[in-house]
């Protein structure tokens, strides 16, 4: 439970963080809330030689309207998403997903940027971004670029974020009072999801994100196509796992995960929000 040795650097600005990343390359990891990085360092699943702490970077904790979108600063904590009336009115799916992350302590430390950049398929927020067709904004030495969430996840704990880039913002379209659903199945309270499903209605169809149904957060593309074809909800739900390749582990067999995805999608389509 002791992490491997590492050097600690504290960035005071995004620019400084980028400079430090340029200096240390992929030897470095960025530290935000620390609730994903520190445990995997303790388990020695990660052993960065340098940890760059973003705790001193100001101006990255915000939720603000920007045209048809809501822009959220990367260092915004889950608890701020959970308690934001503005987010609740504009993107209730995301607010709800933030309210079921981990436990109270985790939601007070963890950040949306950390959760999204970490790339854990068991994380809740990325599935909501998938359902919302959100965008990730990253900043590097050559400036900012926007990455659609569909292009962001490359593999297990692997993202399109370059070694010298910092995730600075998450953008999601306003969905107002359109139907949505979020379902999270756990074997024990406050655990990670064994399987989760996020659903957001949109013009002519809807977006569906899957938690823990493969090496990355996944889009249930086949089910979405059926939605666009106006298939009945139960028929759509039967396609929840069509694009997934879930693993079997001590918590669930692949077959059980597939079954859960179908049941949970049916509930999410019916507007169910699990706690």
């Amino acid at each position, binding site marked *: 439970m*002791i992490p491997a040795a590492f050097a600690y650097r504290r960035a005071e600005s995004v620019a400084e963080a980028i400079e430090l990343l340029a200096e240390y390359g992929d030897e470095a990891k960025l530290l935000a809330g620390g609730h994903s990085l520190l445990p995997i360092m303790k388990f020695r699943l990660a052993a960065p030689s340098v940890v760059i702490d973003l705790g001193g970077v100001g101006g990255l904790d915000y939720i603000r309207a920007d045209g048809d979108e809501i822009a959220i600063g990367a260092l915004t904590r889950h608890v701020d998403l959970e308690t934001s009336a503005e987010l609740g009115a504009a993107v209730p799916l995301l607010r709800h997903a933030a309210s079921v992350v981990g*436990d109270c302590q985790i939601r007070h430390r963890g950040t949306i940027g950390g959760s999204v950049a970490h790339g854990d398929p068991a994380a809740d927020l990325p599935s909501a971004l998938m359902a919302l067709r959100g965008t990730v904004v990253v900043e590097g030495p050559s400036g900012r670029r926007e990455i659609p969430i569909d292009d962001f996840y490359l593999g297990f704990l692997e993202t399109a974020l370059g070694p010298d880039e910092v995730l600075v913002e998450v953008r999601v379209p306003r969905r107002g009072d359109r139907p949505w659903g979020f379902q999270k*199945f756990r*074997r024990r*309270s406050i*655990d990670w999801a064994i399987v989760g499903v996020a659903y957001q209605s949109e013009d002519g169809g809807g977006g569906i994100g899957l938690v823990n149904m493969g090496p990355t957060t996944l889009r249930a593309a086949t089910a979405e196509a059926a939605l666009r074809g106006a298939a009945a909800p139960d028929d759509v739900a039967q396609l929840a796992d069509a694009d997934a390749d879930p693993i079997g*582990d*001590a*918590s669930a*067999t692949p077959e059980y995960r597939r079954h859960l995805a179908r049941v949970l999608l049916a509930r999410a389509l019916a507007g169910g929000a699990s706690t």
Partner: protein
Amino acid sequence: MARTVDGRPKARGEAEFVADAVEQPRLFGALLTTRTAHCRVTVDLDALRALPGVVVALDHDSVPATLYSTNPHGGSADTSVFTDIGRYPGDIVGALAARDRRSLQHALDQSAELITEQPLPAVLSLEDAFTANAEANPQYPGNVVSDLRIGADEAAAREALAACAYQHTSTTWFEPSPHGCLERLAAGAERGQDGWRVWSPSQCPALVRDLLADMFAADVRLEPVFVGGGFGGKEELTLEPAAMLLSAAAGGTRVLLESSRRQMTAAHRARHGGYIRVSTGYDRDGIFGARLVDVVFEAGPYDGHSSTVAANAANAAARLYPRGTVTARSRAMATNRLPGGAFRGYGSIQATFAVETHVDEIAARLGLDRFEIRRRNLARAGDVDPATGLPMHDIDAIGCLDQLARTARTVIATRASGEPSEGLDGWGISMLVSTSAAAGADKPDHAEVACRLEPGSGTVIVETSVAEAGQGIYPLLNRIAANALGLDRDRVLVEHDVRAGSPNDPGMFGSRGANVTGSAVLRASMALRREVLARGARLLAVAPDVVELDAEWTVIRDGQHEVKVSELDPIRVCAEYATTDPGLAFGAQLAQVRCDPRTGAVRVQRVVAVHDAGVVLDEDGARAQVEGAVVQGIGAALSERATFRPDGSIAESGFVNHLVPTAVGLPAVSVSFLPAAASTGSTTGAKGIGEAAIMGIAAAIGNAVGSALGVRARELPITGERVLRLLENTTRDASRSDDERVAAS
């Protein structure tokens, strides 16, 4: 306030557990363990010793040739401190110590390549154990560690069974489960001029002290420590001798040897896996005429507690309904997988699940009320205890059942609120029987305690070799002593003393604290009070029966003259208590559940527990024991397990996947005790509650799932996936498929 002797230091992080108590400077030690199930092992000690910071590396060659039992109460001597034959994945083949934790971690990272394992044929399931194509441990031919019987002759029982109008047989299966203590096992050792100092988190420190003194032929003093959860997992002697060997090899230097969380989860000890088969013959009124119980538990390669846990499971299964012809067989079978060990309930969680789900199945066949079938068959005072052959006494099983029926009436009638809002509700009940002493006719349970008065401060100190593990024994002993002495509770301190020659109490196990240790404390307290009066009388030159002590214990008077207590010489008295009576304690528990038939998820909404705790000495403490046990029982019922991989290793690695229930989402628990309970006849009159309270939870939950979904869960834990499989295949409903005449099987 003395009310929570351990609460304040624990809440403030000031309580010293082994890893805190072993003073700096110290060497840091860790175990070297195997990966394969069964193998011949060689350790490259020279390479390990050459690693930076490593001070000592030891393997089998450093160990005395004699084998010992990790069960401090005595078991088969089948274990070497470091083995050269690894007999399960994670078996202990050596240990090393380094100057600091970082060097230790570095050395451990290298060690996998420095331990060579040559595979041997392995026993990787109970089926393998029975076919005996391989031997898990040559000490156990045919892989049989134990094969014991209690009650009637088996042929007579089969005959009686066949003579009954109806028969029912059911088999329940159990996955093993580790203890999940917050404090990992650790041990410290240092050799000084006057012998050894050892730091041990053992639940049985006095026994460990004496065993280590024997093993090392030296004086051993155990240092006082808190224990961060035991639950039976700290009833095994594993790390202490290894720490002493490391220290000896380093010239007596102080060493702290710690286990890892992975070792505690996947390689230490577990609640036993295995199966229990129950057959009952009964008539149309549901009266049992004959019962056969067959317990088969997986021991792993060493005996440890396994033979006694299996035997205790048979005892519990037989005792609940002892009427008619009852027989029970228990077997512990050797395999090359995670060893079973002592775990709160000591086989009774499994036995109760087996028997009580079976009874519900019979009730369902007959269309009998679930309370009524139990009422007709439960043990009554005077019934012969199949385990001891003696009449049961001072028991009130039916009183527990009736009180549960009254308390539960409203629970059963109302639908619980809360998450999930949808689903199918059900409720189930379970009876249970526990003991209040680790006693048998040929093996009395025995406790010694000392009480001393420090006249200057007016404080009374209770000296015990029992450790506080969070079970609340110190607040309880404090209360017993304060009441007997007539002193305010903060004038009484409980002191952990495990030096050689200190009062000998074997420790925390068998739900014996309130009954056995408590009775010794009560006797010592009364003796101390008598001695104070006698000393005062002597100084006043009057007879002891004419003096009295004021309420504050400041002066002793004879009406005319007085002596100040502060002027007395220090007084220390010892007392003991011994009993051969197991002190049977019945209870009845109910669980209400909500099941999600689409995901298989089971959520416990409410638990009602009624216990015969004899004389309740500390209602808050007893209630807390029950509440904690309910939580642990829910874990046993629904989520906690060690999952075997095909190679015999365990998939779970720590609290991320060993799913101990968390504080969020726990049910309301209602606890009550029989108001006019019969005492055990011991000095305190208290009965055991610590284990009783966990025994029926899984069975009640299993029966509740049965009533909610109409399928019988026959395997623990009842995971969502299992429930779903049962629902998908209701044709395999076991309560029907076992409907054959047992005599034919």
